[in-house]
């Protein structure tokens, strides 16, 4: 039942569309949000992603997937992209593309890593690095609805400066009540009182405790991060089916 709405929306053939960059929003020194105008965008659910395709003059094509950052209620589609220095696609999106220019995109796709906002169970989110992006779409959708189930985010970043959406997360935590906890794995500012290590079972137990009835966990990040966090959550007593995972890596299709 959770996927029914998504299924219904995805019935239209998946076509490549031209997205136009409206603006770049810097998030960290290597991460930018792309605010896009996509004509006839069919709408999406929090947690879904899009495929981006770039074609060189000689016909060579490179394709990558990017999570959608904006909530379904947003007027513009937003993608938050981390620039990988040896990447084929991300440096173009973050550094070369200029407002008014267009590129090919298709979607939304994905149904497994999608939050059903009608579910009343607690929302437990664990993000590593740019794995925060689809989780942010969920928190934004929850905030836009004005009322939602209890939500807790555990976010692992290399340093304080690498925390994407930091100001918005702090505002959301103050206004809309998601509990936000950080762990900084490489460097900490002076006087840091949050966690200072990689996510482990003890940290997950401290943040989430025993899973309450109906809780769903969403874990997104690099593969090794997701494996550790998902195993840790199952160790706390989550049913494996209630721990939804999305792994991302350096390569695309």
């Amino acid at each position, binding site marked *: 039942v959770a996927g029914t709405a998504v299924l219904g929306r995805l019935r239209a053939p998946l076509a490549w569309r031209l997205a136009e960059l409206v603006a770049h929003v810097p998030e960290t020194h290597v991460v930018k949000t792309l605010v896009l105008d996509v004509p006839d965008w069919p709408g999406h659910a929090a947690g879904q992603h899009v495929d981006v395709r770039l074609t060189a003059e000689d016909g060579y094509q490179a394709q990558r997937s990017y999570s959608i950052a904006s909530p379904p209620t947003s007027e513009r589609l937003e993608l938050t992209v981390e620039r990988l220095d040896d990447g084929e696609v991300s440096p173009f999106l973050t550094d070369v593309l200029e407002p008014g220019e267009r590129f090919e995109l298709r979607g939304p796709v*994905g149904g*497994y890593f999608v939050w059903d906002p009608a579910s009343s169970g607690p929302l437990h989110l664990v993000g590593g690095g740019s794995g925060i992006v689809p989780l942010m779409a969920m928190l934004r959708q929850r905030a836009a609805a004005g009322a939602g189930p209890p939500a807790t985010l555990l976010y692992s970043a290399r340093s304080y400066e690498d925390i994407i959406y930091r100001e918005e997360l702090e505002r959301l935590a103050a206004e809309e009540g998601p509990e936000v906890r950080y762990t900084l794995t490489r460097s900490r500012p002076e006087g840091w009182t949050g966690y200072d290590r990689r996510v482990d079972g003890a940290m997950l137990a401290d943040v989430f405790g025993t899973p309450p009835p109906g809780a769903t966990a969403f874990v997104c990040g690099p593969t090794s991060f*997701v494996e550790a966090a998902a195993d840790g959550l199952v160790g706390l007593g989550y049913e494996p089916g209630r721990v939804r995972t999305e792994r991302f890596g350096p390569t695309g299709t």
Partner: protein
Amino acid sequence: METSDLMLDGNALAGPLAEIFVGEVTMARATCASCGAVREVGSLAVYVAAPGTVARCPDCDAVLLRVVRAERRIWFELRGVASLELARDD
């Protein structure tokens, strides 16, 4: 089973399989022909660094399906899948 950051998961199949299936296939439940495990496609172990995309059973590591795309063609192999259960709208 060894964990590598080259391993992704079935979420990465959503785009490629949308060229073949009408509905959202990452919510479909696949039964492994080798060990009988039933898994949502979104939770399969997926490798995209090969010439094609390969999905393996997270329980027994058997190859469940392969997708290879080339110019104007797509090959889709489902040898390791005993059955695929998809939701349908009535």
